């Protein structure tokens, strides 16, 4: 099912997006707590992914194999924790906030993730 979802995403023109993750906080660092220092960020690529627009809501369907690879390599507990930790998704240089995450499952396994996105206010 996962391979089928990946194949469908590629067939409909699936593309790569970047998940922006903050580096771990510095322990006992008052400068960060006071907003004087910002954490470093790293962008990791997720793909294939495809946009879905309906009723003014922007959603992104992301391959679960890509998500799993990132969860495994960066040692996150789960995909949900990964998305909650992320600052957002960088798509064509624009940072979108992730407001909701839903894993679409079949036979107990997520085959893709639906991410609800909020575009920055311009």
């Amino acid at each position: 099912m996962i391979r089928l979802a990946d194949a469908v995403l590629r067939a409909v023109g699936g593309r790569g997006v970047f998940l922006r993750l903050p580096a771990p906080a510095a322990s006992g660092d008052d400068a960060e707590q006071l907003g004087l220092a910002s954490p470093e960020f790293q962008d990791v690529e997720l793909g294939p992914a495809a946009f879905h627009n309906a009723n003014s809501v922007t959603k992104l369907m992301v391959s679960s194999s890509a998500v799993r690879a990132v969860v495994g390599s960066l040692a996150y507990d789960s995909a949900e924790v990964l998305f909650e930790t992320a600052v957002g998704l960088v798509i064509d240089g624009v940072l979108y906030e992730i407001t909701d995450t839903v894993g679409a499952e079949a036979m107990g396994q997520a085959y893709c993730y639906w991410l609800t996105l909020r575009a920055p206010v311009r």
Partner: protein
Amino acid sequence: MQNAKDTFYEVLRSRLVALNPYRTVVLRGVVRPGLLVEENELVTTVALPDCFRMRWAVKAVSADGAMPLIAMECEIEYETAGTAINGGMDRGRLLAAMDAELQAAVDPLPRTTQKMNYVGLASGAAAVAMTTSVWWSEVTFGQTVVKDDRLARTAMLTVMAYQEAGEL
């Protein structure tokens, strides 16, 4: 204004830690005392339960004296879902415990402290004492608000300080 905000945060955090060192929060992989300033954190971290979240607003600026006197409104929001082992049925008690902790941290005298400049921390230097003080009012508690499975409350107090020459 920023120095007064930073100073009050540091004082309140140290008082809360002394009262209950077990009230902590995990933010970006690090265990920290359970008090954070919303504007200093990523937007994705603001709805954490079982910790105090501070928010600032300028209330009034008076330029009548030798130095401008600034009064800032400080909102402290907190919420709890209780403990999972009790099925959340202790959420009222835990909210009351947070009320008591906040009152015990804010209200006792002295409600004043030396204003500090923490800008040097960003480059590894120490905080510098300024010439004026920061002082604050007693805390007032808002209504209990039900947020799905959580009980929430917003407490408010006023923090005042003189704006020294060259301060942000």
